[in-house]
């Protein structure tokens, strides 16, 4: 399990969530996948993730270092299943 580096960040950082999408070295989706993998609770639909760009980078770096083969595909497919409405 990845050590959660931003576990105790306060919700006051909510304003930084846009910065994640704008400046982090990955798409917001990748960041969310990494955050989920790192043990963050997925906020209710429509709620922002509370991550600074630096924190997101740290989460992704940790995840990239430790994930097992296939984890990226599993995580992406899980997210897809959650987000896409059946036809």
């Amino acid at each position, binding site marked *: 399990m990845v050590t959660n580096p931003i576990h105790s960040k306060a919700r006051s950082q909510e304003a930084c969530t846009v910065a994640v999408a704008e400046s982090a070295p990955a798409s917001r989706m990748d960041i969310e996948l990494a955050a989920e993998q790192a043990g963050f609770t997925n906020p209710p639909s429509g709620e922002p993730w509370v991550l600074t760009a630096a924190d997101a980078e740290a989460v992704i770096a940790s995840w990239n270092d430790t994930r097992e083969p296939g984890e990226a*595909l599993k995580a*992406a*497919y899980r997210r897809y299943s959650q987000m896409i*409405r059946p036809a």
Partner: protein
Amino acid sequence: MTDIGAASFRFEPFSPLHDKIAFRCGQTNLDAYFQRQARQDVSRNLARVYVLTRDGKNVDGFYTLSAASIDPGSLPADAARRLPSIAIPATLLGRMAVAKPMQGLGLGNFVLMSALRMAWEGSRVIGSWAVVVDATASAHTCYLKYEFQPLPDRPLRLFLAMSRFAQLLSGLYIAE
């Protein structure tokens, strides 16, 4: 910025209800294909085209699937060893794009996952050993991340065996 968490995305077979003219992904060849050729390919049974949409009209992304085959001699030795020496049936993920205003939100992952899911479902009806893509140099790493393997002599052509896809997701998200 679009809040994809609150949006209601779905994939649909490309039809006249979808606005093909407004679609722009930033790559001229893909825009031209979608606007001018995709519907013809569907009507001539050359490809199946699926679109990502929120409202059934505007297109946020698309992908195409077609039947294909792989020369077993082109595969890595460990994969070819378990296959007959004939052309191996496969599913070609021919084109994939996300509309320019929606790029950077991770929708490319949705498009790819939907394509893999659809290809896998198709393989349950008509045998297909793998999904095949011809990647751009910039997308190559992304496919590797999602378990695709390059052909040894043609590294930008990559494949993902259906069995690997099913193995990874079995018991979690798809029924084997």
